[in-house]
């Protein structure tokens, strides 16, 4: 492990060793000259002199120790000077074994860097408190639906006002809804805005001060109130150039003149990531509607009130409301969730799994370094023995080792933090959008504190290890036996156990990553029911001013229908477009559900709801959904003709098991019955993991959408992304005031649906690979050391008639026993912890032994391969030479 030539070039000898080394050198060179003058050859003379001189390193160590004591006597013990000198001596010692130092520093830097990078993501998403005072008191009151089993549903505004009136445990409650709006800009393309309409007490519930201006009042939040808004810091800076005089100015949003009242604080991004502005919700108890569930409720708990108590209270409120409003609140309950947990549930598991994985990698790296230190310690016994013999106290030796540990740690920590900043960027690039939505992770103060804590821990360990080893030193024996140090074999069981531990951690990581790879493969082979290849989607929103949705004239909304018709015609005319359609929710977008009634049957309250998909007829062809039975929706189906719908296969199987769905009539949204004219294949809309729920498809030309984000879908004959520009142009030709946003290929949409699993499996696989590599180095290191230490024994055995095969078998047996122990322990550990992965897995049982077998046999093969080199080296021992060397 020595790279003396490199070092000698970089650091000439005198620099390393200005005093003692030169003195010894003078002696040795002088002696050699003496013999050469007497006619010896130079090499022979050098060998003889070195043999007579004894161990040069031990002599130098002893001399330096005396010098150090002399200086200590002159100054005082344990002064800063003494520490500095220890550090300098330690640095020299590390430089002399530069290869060792490099390997140790790199290994630790990898461990520190990887764990710090993952921790920075954990810190950003899971540990960083929300930017509100007493954020633990904030909770979201969701509704759940016992019929569909969904747990995070919106509330109605009427329910909200009942919460406010009936809840004792919430000090205050606010509600909000979100949706897209369009900001017109002079001389620039219109900008799509993420708007939240909120109750004015949102400021009081969250607890923040405005950055500029003021929040709107309850007087401004009445039906028919003035058009006012407060802006997010981001919109203020990006779109308005952080104009300090923004308060009182007006913006044109959806063709309406809106007065700016103020700017929200910089760190506030609520209720959803990338929110642009808040406007008053313009709702009162008197205006509230109970059948339309479109708002979310967030509240602040009173001092001492727990989420569990709030859950019980709100469940009771919802139970009472279900009795009072049997039709609107049927099957609806309450689900209270801490605000800080919202959206983090799935990520929590993923991130803690990855964090545990990276800590295992760190542990494996530390074991490798510990093994290197133990091996180095064994070969340094003589050095320690000399230090002890010349009167260096335990304190001096301890200080010396701690100084070495400190230098290694400082180097590894700095390199590790550098690696961490790269790692954070890589993780951010790979991370699913749902994770990055919380903000980009960074190496900030808490993350640095983590890196520091890990490093200090490592430093203490590395100071302690050689000290404990030195404490067991048999001084007399070491001095007498000289360089035949046998200290290694006594400590070898410890080292073998450490390596077995490494292998077991590697097995656990490998089992985890193979389970996740299996999951990913299963998810990617799921038939989503539509054809993502060649399809593009783009969102737009229609301002209600030019595209009014008047309930009185529903479904006859000519402006919206006219826009949809022109849009489809323009887009279909774009070269390269095979087909185009509009849908309220693209494939894999959850959308919404409706209760329904089948004509001629008594209403069954246990039937649940059906997903309701608003599409234009071209959707079936454009998404690649297969028609199984009957006819598709057609352009001829419009306002005034027979109201029609399609069902998916699941809906037919569940509600018309006799297969007589065609011709049946179903009503939702009031008493209008629609005739089932066709059946389509199941399309995955709840993500790839969940089977398709029963769904009905209606045409927008009979049931137009009421605003919100609408999706344009295009199937292309050319690369879909090449159509983004032409499609934007086509939309602009229909209405230049409508921005197009969230453009993506459907293939990317499918990929995003498995991004959490892909992220987890990719990162875990990388960690698994690093773990294998480190563990293999560990196996090889211990065996190579064993062979080096027991070369004499091997020589004796061979002299006594052992064949090379016997010797190879001896070494391989040592390796195999370590490997077998490690793998068995690892399999047991994997069985114990794999259950934690269950929430991440799909189509794979956490105890599926095929994955365990694959991981174990893979690792066994590589581990045995790692025994080959030491075994071969042992077989090459020359018995005569090794015996003579003694």
């Amino acid at each position, binding site marked *: 492990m020595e790279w003396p030539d490199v070092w000698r070039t970089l650091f000439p000898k005198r620099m390393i060793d200005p005093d003692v080394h*030169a003195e010894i050198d003078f002696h040795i060179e002088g002696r050699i000259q003496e013999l050469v003058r007497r006619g010896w050859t130079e090499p022979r003379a050098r060998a003889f002199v070195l043999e007579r001189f004894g161990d040069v390193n*031990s002599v130098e160590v002893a001399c330096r120790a005396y010098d150090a004591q002399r200086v200590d006597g002159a100054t005082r013990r344990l002064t800063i000077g003494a520490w500095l000198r220890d550090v300098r001596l330690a640095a020299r010692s590390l430089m002399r074994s530069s290869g060792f130092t490099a390997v140790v520093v790199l290994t630790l830097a990898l461990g520190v860097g990887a764990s710090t990078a993952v921790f920075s993501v954990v810190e950003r998403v899971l540990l960083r408190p929300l930017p509100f005072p007493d954020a633990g008191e904030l909770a979201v009151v969701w509704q759940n639906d016992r019929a569909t089993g969904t747990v995070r549903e919106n509330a109605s505004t009427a329910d909200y006002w009942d919460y406010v009136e009936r809840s004792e445990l919430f000090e205050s409650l606010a509600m909000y809804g979100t949706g897209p709006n369009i900001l017109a800009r002079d001389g620039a393309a219109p900008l799509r805005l993420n708007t939240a309409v909120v109750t004015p007490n949102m400021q009081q519930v969250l607890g923040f001060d405005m950055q500029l201006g003021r929040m709107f009042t309850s007087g401004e939040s009445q039906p028919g109130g003035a058009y006012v808004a407060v802006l997010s810091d981001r919109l203020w800076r990006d779109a308005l150039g952080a104009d300090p005089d923004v308060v009182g100015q007006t913006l044109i949003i959806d063709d309406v003149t809106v007065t700016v009242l103020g700017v929200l604080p910089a760190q506030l991004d609520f209720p959803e990531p990338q929110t642009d502005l808040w406007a008053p919700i313009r709702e009162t108890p008197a205006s509230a509607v109970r059948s339309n569930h479109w708002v979310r409720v967030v509240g602040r708990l009173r001092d001492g009130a727990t989420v569990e108590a709030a859950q019980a209270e709100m469940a009771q409120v919802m139970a009472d409301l279900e009795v009072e409003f049997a039709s609107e609140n049927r099957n609806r309950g309450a689900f209270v969730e801490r605000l800080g947990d919202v959206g983090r549930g799935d990520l929590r598991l993923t991130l803690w799994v990855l964090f545990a994985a990276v800590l295992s990698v760190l542990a494996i790296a530390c074991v490798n370094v510990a093994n290197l230190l133990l091996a180095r310690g064994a070969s340094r016994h003589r050095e320690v023995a000399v230090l002890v013999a010349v009167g260096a106290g335990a304190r001096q030796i301890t200080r010396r080792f701690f100084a070495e540990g400190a230098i290694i740690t400082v180097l590894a920590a700095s390199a590790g933090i550098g690696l961490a900043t790269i790692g954070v960027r890589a993780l951010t690039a790979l991370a699913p959008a749902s994770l990055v939505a919380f903000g980009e992770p960074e190496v900030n103060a808490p993350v640095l504190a983590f890196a520091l804590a890990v490093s200090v821990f490592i430093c203490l360990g590395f100071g302690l290890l050689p000290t404990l080893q030195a404490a067991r030193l048999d001084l007399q024996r070491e001095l007498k036996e000289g360089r035949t140090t046998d200290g290694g074999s006594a400590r070898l069981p410890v080292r073998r156990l450490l390596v077995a531990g490494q292998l077991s951690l590697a097995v656990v990581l490998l089992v985890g990553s193979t389970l996740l790879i299996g999951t990913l493969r299963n998810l990617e082979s799921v038939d989503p029911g539509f054809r993502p290849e060649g399809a593009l989607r783009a969102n737009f929103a229609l301002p209600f001013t030019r595209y009014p949705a008047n309930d009185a004239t529903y479904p006859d909304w000519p402006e919206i229908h006219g826009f949809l018709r022109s849009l489809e015609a323009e887009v279909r005319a774009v070269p390269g477009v095979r087909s185009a359609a509009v849908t309220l929710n693209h494939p894999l977008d959850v959308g919404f559900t409706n209760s329904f009634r089948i004509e001629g049957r008594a209403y069954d309250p246990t039937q649940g709801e059906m997903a309701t998909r608003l599409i234009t007829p071209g959707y079936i062809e454009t998404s690649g959904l297969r028609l199984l039975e009957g006819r598709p929706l057609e352009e001829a189906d419009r306002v005034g003709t027979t109201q029609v719908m399609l069902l998916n296969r699941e809906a037919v199987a569940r509600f018309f098991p006799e297969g007589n769905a065609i011709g049946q009539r179903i009503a939702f949204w009031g008493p209008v019955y629609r005739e089932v004219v066709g059946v389509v294949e199941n399309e995955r809309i709840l993500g790839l993991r969940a089977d398709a729920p029963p769904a009905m498809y209606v045409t927008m030309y009979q049931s137009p959408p009421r605003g919100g984000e609408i999706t344009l879908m295009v199937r292309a004959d050319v690369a879909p992304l090449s159509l983004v520009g032409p499609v934007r142009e086509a939309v602009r030709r229909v209405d230049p005031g409508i921005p197009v946003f969230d453009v993506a290929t459907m293939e990317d949409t499918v990929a995003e649906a498995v991004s959490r699993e892909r992220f987890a499996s990719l990162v875990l696989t990388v960690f698994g690979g690093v773990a294998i590599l480190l563990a293999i180095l560990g196996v090889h290191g211990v065996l190579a050391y064993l062979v080096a230490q027991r070369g004499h024994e091997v020589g004796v055995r061979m002299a006594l008639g052992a064949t090379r095969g016997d010797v190879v078998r001896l070494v391989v047996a040592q390796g195999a026993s370590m490997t077998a122990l490690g793998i068995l322990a690892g399999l047991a550990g994997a069985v114990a912890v794999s259950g934690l992965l269950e929430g991440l897995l799909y189509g794979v049982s956490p105890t599926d032994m095929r994955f365990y077998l694959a991981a174990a046999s893979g690792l066994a093969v590589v581990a045995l391969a790692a025994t080959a080199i030491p075994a071969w080296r042992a077989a090459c021992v020359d018995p005569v030479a090794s015996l003579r060397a003694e």
Partner: protein
Amino acid sequence: MGVDSDTLYGTMNLLVLQALRDGPLHGLAVSRRIAGGTKGALQVEEGALYPALHRLERDGLVEGEWGRTEENRRAKFYRITAKGRHQLERESARWARHAGAVAGLLNLSPGWKA
């Protein structure tokens, strides 16, 4: 029965001080004197001289200083201090009293100093 390390170092100290009695010498010269004087009877590795020199320096019995040899090579020369000389007298007397025990082993005789 082996020689314990204290005795070994004590003996070495005495030999070194003895060698330096007549003037400063560098380590190699001290080594030559001791080897010549003991006629190789002292079975110690040659390098052991240097820890002894540095230990004597620590204890203030000798002083080291870098200088030039006759061939103009840089070398560290050691000079016996007053304290060292005093120690030498005292130890020599002690050795003389135990001459029967040690003279044979170390082949110590008044004549080898030349």
